[in-house]
């Protein structure tokens, strides 16, 4: 927590006092709060606190500014939302995945191997790992955690679909038997539904009371719904606390208004934030006290084309629409450069991304030619586009697109809807009632091309997320083959997935608009921060430190 830079080197006198006060307040809050889900407020930590001893000023507190509630779910089995940002610091998984290097880091497992047929995976666990409850982790917890998550069926628990059963030959060995070959290393390192927790205390009510039972470096200190979450370091963390500059506490403050978050960052009252509009980020770039960090993300913007409804049931019309989209304009003037024009659905930086895929470019003449070929030389039809209400990027992109389509004689009606209404319309029983174009973002539940190719475009009897209503047996077969190959040979699978994407582009099943870059604004004193798109928006606070110390 930077309590106002005083202009002197490092933390000036006032800053140190502020931190003393903060420490006193947080301690009191911890004593008074009782760890419940209630208010963070503890005793009335008056201004007289702050002892003169030199120990309290060792406390470093980082502040993350969030745009919405962090703890949507408290149960690690159910987690499927914002809480990933806190949970990845409270709980751990067997492995950790670095998608840009396509590499795994051992966390709760120290080593692992896979059988020749890809059906049996054996993980050797780290010894001497303690849960926040004080218990030592054994293979029974690993088995119990995963089985509980599957049994509850919430969150991203479907990623465990390939799993047949788990065996625990001894306290530190876990054997997974699969129904079919699958990349279990990716699954056990997933951001959702792969946490290991103390199964003895695991109970929904207990979690929802604001408790955690993980092995991670931080544990819950207090939570005030809609206001803040305070994590404090877990002294018995297996990785130890070796660097005195590591954060003792991390505060997640909920500040929905971008303008306020910007102000707080500018006045040194925050160390990390994201989700600022591009215009604001531009304004912050020149601030010497702040860093703007841009990294590729696995989130992209798609425009699903209704392949079942005339006139978009004609591939030539869809292709014309794809050529009419002002990709570069949207990247330059809506995203202000914080995005990358897409190449097919799989985002840049992820395995299965095809940099050479024939992505259609903005070309109105080509669009006109295709329309004429399809029998619409002057357009003359109207389309309905839906987007999620409140999303400025989608709105602006839609309005820019509307102008392009108008020049082709196509009338685009833009409808803003809350997501569930948008989704409901997209799944109306009568395909003719559905929208023609649907704008939405997609991101992976698992760093696996399957997250797009299977969920979004494989034939679905009951429509869930195949909102293009695309159905192509050849494509389905390719995706299935790729999924099977992924458990044995990822490179081979990637090649298959790229072939499948080629079909999507040939059939113009959707507009692949851009791969978003995540833009984070951090304070200068946040050292060691590195973004990992496999765990969106997560800061591994344990790996960062107070560089101003």
């Amino acid at each position: 927590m930077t309590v106002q830079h005083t202009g002197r080197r490092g933390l000036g006198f006032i800053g140190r006092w502020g931190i003393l006060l903060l420490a006193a307040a947080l301690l009191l809050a911890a004593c008074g709060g009782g760890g419940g889900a209630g208010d963070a407020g503890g005793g009335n930590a008056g201004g007289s606190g702050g002892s003169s001893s030199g120990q309290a000023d060792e406390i470093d507190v980082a502040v993350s500014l969030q745009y919405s509630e962090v703890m949507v779910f408290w149960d690690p089995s159910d987690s499927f939302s914002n809480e990933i940002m806190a949970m990845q610091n409270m709980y751990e998984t067997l492995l950790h995945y670095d998608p840009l290097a396509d590499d795994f880091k051992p966390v709760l497992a120290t080593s692992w191997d896979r059988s020749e047929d890809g059906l049996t995976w054996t993980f050797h666990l780290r010894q001497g790992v303690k849960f926040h409850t004080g218990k030592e982790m054994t293979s029974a917890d690993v088995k119990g955690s995963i089985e509980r998550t599957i049994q509850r069926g919430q969150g991203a628990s479907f990623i465990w679909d390939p799993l047949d059963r788990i065996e625990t030959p001894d306290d530190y060995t876990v054997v997974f038997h699969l129904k079919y070959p699958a990349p279990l290393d990716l699954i056990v390192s997933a951001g959702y539904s792969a946490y290991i927790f103390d199964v003895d205390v695991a109970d929904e009510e207990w979690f929802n009371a604001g408790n955690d039972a993980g092995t991670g470096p931080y544990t819950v200190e207090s939570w005030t719904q809609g206001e803040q979450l305070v994590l404090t370091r877990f002294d018995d963390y297996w990785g130890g606390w070796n660097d005195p500059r590591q954060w003792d506490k991390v505060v997640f403050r909920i500040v929905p208004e971008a303008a306020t978050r910007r102000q707080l960052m500018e006045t040194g009252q925050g160390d990390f934030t994201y989700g600022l509009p591009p215009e604001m980020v531009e304004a912050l770039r020149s601030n010497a006290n702040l860093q703007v960090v841009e990294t590729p993300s696995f989130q992209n913007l798609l425009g699903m084309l209704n392949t079942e409804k005339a006139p978009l049931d004609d591939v030539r019309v869809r292709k014309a629409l794809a050529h009419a989209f002002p990709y570069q304009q949207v990247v330059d003037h809506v995203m202000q450069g914080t995005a990358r024009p897409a190449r097919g659905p799989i985002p840049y930086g992820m395995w299965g991304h095809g940099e050479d895929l024939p992505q259609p470019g903005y070309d109105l003449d080509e669009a006109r030619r295709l329309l004429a070929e399809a029998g619409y030389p002057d357009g003359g039809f109207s389309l309905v586009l839906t987007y999620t209400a409140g999303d400025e990027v989608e709105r602006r992109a839609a309005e820019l697109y509307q102008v392009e389509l108008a020049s082709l004689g196509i009338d685009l009606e833009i409808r803003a809807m809350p997501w569930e209404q948008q989704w409901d319309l997209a799944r109306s029983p009568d395909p003719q009632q559905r929208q023609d174009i649907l704008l939405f973002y997609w991101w992976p539940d698992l760093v696996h091309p399957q997250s797009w190719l299977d969920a979004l475009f494989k034939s679905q009897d009951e429509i869930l997320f195949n909102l293009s209503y695309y159905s192509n047996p050849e494509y389905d077969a390719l995706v299935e083959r790729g999924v099977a190959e992924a458990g044995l040979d990822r490179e081979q699978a990637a090649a298959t997935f790229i072939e499948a994407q080629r079909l999507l582009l040939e059939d113009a099943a959707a507009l692949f608009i851009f791969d978003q870059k995540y833009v984070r604004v951090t304070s200068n004193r946040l050292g060691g921060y590195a973004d990992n798109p496999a765990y969106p928006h997560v800061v591994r606070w344990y790996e960062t430190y107070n560089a101003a110390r």
Partner: protein
Amino acid sequence: MRAFIIRRLFLSAVAVLGVAVITFVVARLVPADPAARWVGPHATAEQIARARVELGLDQPLWRQLITHMAALAVGDWGRSIITHQPVIRDIAAHLPTSLVLVAAGTLLAVALGIPLGVVSAAARNRWPDHLSRALAIGLVSIPTFWLAMILQLWLGQGAGLLPIAGQVDTVLSLLSPVPRVTGALVVDSLLAGRFDVFRSALAHLVMPALTVAAYPLGLITRMVRSSMMEVLSEDYVRTARAYGVAERRILYRHALRNAMGPTLTVIALSLGYALTGTFLVEAVFAWPGLGRYAANAVIGGDFPAIVGVTVVVALAYVLLNLVVDLAQAALDPRVRYD
């Protein structure tokens, strides 16, 4: 008199019942599937089906209505789709903060509106009257959400006099949180003897309160003016004048006192309006109250929350009207009991 009270109470009860029915109808008009929203953006079909049963959406409509009314009565208002918390708890958490704003705004409006109205009435059709009338009309014509932004630009960003948004200085609230007693920070900070927090909270309150005050201020000024004029043309005032009673005394002793009845009604009305007005104001000022909660619910299609807020505000409105009517009946024997 007793008959009047009983009838008035009965009508209020009917209104409350009607509020419950109307909100149910509103909630059922929504084309979207609440279950889909409940489980989140990447849900599976089974998860949605399970949520539907959990939320009681598989029941017949009349049954849902009865369940809805019964649930409202016992305080089970469902869970917000956005926060996943019980709506009633969300409302309880956000209401005090809004009430502070509404109270501050209304106080401002009353404190300024009554003298303005008196001046206007006393100077009928002369320039002070025209000026205050123009001002009053201007105030009821300003879109509050726009006024909020103009104040932010002018007093906040331009003059740098006041904090642009929020309820209290973040550093201050983080350094040493004030224990929550009433939920209203200005009150809680005083209770805790935390004058630093109190000062900061007060500074943060000024712009939102001014914005909320604008509309009621216009209403009150107009009402005081018109009811004063009515009184001033009564025979007894003319008589008093004829007997040489000082004009000042006539204005404040006789006219204003008699004008207080209708003014009271308008103040109660304004309170109800101000409560709804917070929908438009709080989001702009990042004021963590019921209005911002409602605005977010509207944007996010969070119907349990929308229904909950609607019920609370409508109930408050019914209650206010009831209290005012009863008070007037008690104070002013001229009120007709029909």
